[in-house]
């Protein structure tokens, strides 16, 4: 087809420009991909950390099974509570021994089990902020039979602050990277079109329709975008694979991520070309006298 032929002659005749466009796109998409991977893993990390957030309600020692049952029901019915797990005195001791690990020897010196029974209260995601934790904790604390409440106030506050900061930075970087990518790529393409503006002008004068002039540029842009996206995600995947074995599940990369990068590249190429070429088509009718560049 004529347009495809034109696109390929455009690419091969203007190797420098094709190369630069490809390079800029590749770089942008690589960074974009890195950013995506970081973001996804950041959120996975946050999720993991938040999974650990929960409330422990320590019980008085002399509660009957019935009282425990009804207490459990009461707690479960609170808003935001997902699950309530009972931990008996002996389970608590066992867990403590495990936690101590090598130091556990010294528990043998103990004669009674000083640890209380407790409820581990798991909350829904959206209730894991300091405020909700506090209000739920207070409600549980007020229930009869509950001796003490612990939910790692300080730790939750730190986590909450860190998450907010990280998500904030991530958002800002995301906006900057996305916009910079689009801006830089679009303008690079504009530059390559600019270098051919005389040719575009001549085509118009010889009676080529705008579609006829634009189409090869669009095809060029899309080809470059797909290639750049492909190479960028290829490289990212390569780097990931080198370290994948050693990373365990510390960093995760999914196939969708690469598809997103390629799609973003294609869009960049298409939109960038479209905007750019349009700029160099002659001033539409009615505007003063043209050519003043």
């Amino acid at each position, binding site marked *: 087809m004529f347009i495809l032929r034109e696109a390929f002659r455009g690419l091969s*005749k*203007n190797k420098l420009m094709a190369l630069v466009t490809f390079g800029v796109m590749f770089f942008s998409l690589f960074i974009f991909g890195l950013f995506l991977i970081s973001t996804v893993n950041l959120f996975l990390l946050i999720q993991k950390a938040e999974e650990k957030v929960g409330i422990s309600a320590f019980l008085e020692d002399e509660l009957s099974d019935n009282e425990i049952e009804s207490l459990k029901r009461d707690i479960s019915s609170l808003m935001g509570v997902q699950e309530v797990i009972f931990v008996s005195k002996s389970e608590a001791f066992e867990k403590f021994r495990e936690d101590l690990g090598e130091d556990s020897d010294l528990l043998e010196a103990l004669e009674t089990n000083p640890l209380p029974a407790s409820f581990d209260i798991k909350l829904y995601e959206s209730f894991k902020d300091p405020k909700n934790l506090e209000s739920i904790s207070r409600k549980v604390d007020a229930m009869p039979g509950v001796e003490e409440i612990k939910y790692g106030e300080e730790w939750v506050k730190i986590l909450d602050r860190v998450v907010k900061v990280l998500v904030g930075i991530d958002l800002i970087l995301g906006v900057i990277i996305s916009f910079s990518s689009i801006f830089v790529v679009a303008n690079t393409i504009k530059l390559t079109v600019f270098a051919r503006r005389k040719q575009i002008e001549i*085509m*118009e004068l010889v*009676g*080529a329709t*705008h579609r*006829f002039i634009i189409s090869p540029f669009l095809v060029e842009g899309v080809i470059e975008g797909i290639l750049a996206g492909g190479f960028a995600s290829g490289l990212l995947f390569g780097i990931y694979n080198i370290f994948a074995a050693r990373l365990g599940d510390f960093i995760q990369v999914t196939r969708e991520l690469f598809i997103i990068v390629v799609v973003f590249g294609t869009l960049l190429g298409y939109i960038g070309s479209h905007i750019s070429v349009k700029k160099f088509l002659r001033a539409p*009718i009615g505007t003063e006298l043209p*050519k003043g560049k």
Partner: protein
Amino acid sequence: MIQIYDTDVVFHKEWYALKNINLKIEKGEFIFVTGPSGCGKTTLLRLMYMDIFPTKGEVIVAGYHSSSIKSKEIPFLRRKIGVIFQDFKLLQDRDLFDNVSFALQVTATPRKQIKEKVLKTIADVHLSHKRDSFPYQLSGGEQQRVSIARALVREPFILLADEPTGNVDPESTKQILELLKDINASGTAVIMATHEIHLVKKSPFRKIVVKMGEVIEDTKDNLKEEIFLDNL
């Protein structure tokens, strides 16, 4: 075919490149536009292929009105017109053959037909031996002839020739004039801008003389030499 009514072209405020032009050009006419350097010949032709629009007045070409033509229609107007540009306007990254065939590709002519027509036209301007050369490999005169070939290959209704013989020798000039007359004989209106007054002076065709943006003569009679002198 072409009508121009009360048309002014003003590039800078208060400075008229063309002033109060009124012209009517019929199908199949052969017209010389002449006048001293910078008088407005090229500007007049640019009005006709709607590269610029009048500041005042109305230009009507092949049924399209300058006041109402849409962006989209301009390419179709231009396909009816062949233009030989004063500065050639060749595509620098295409060889001679591709430059000429481009004029047909934009109209979606079948490939075979393109090749046939292009080769014939290139032969008409005596450039068959240069068909693979790029513009920068051609002499000034050769580039001019490529521009001519590109305008002719589409067998247009209207041919606008802006100084088509400025860069060629007298012998080639004669040949090019013959070529234009031939295409005129087949029904195409030819409007040729030129400053070579001796070419025009005694020709039997209609002659339009422009000076300082105004038409000062529009006649089929012989022109007087003094027409170019400063003190007319």
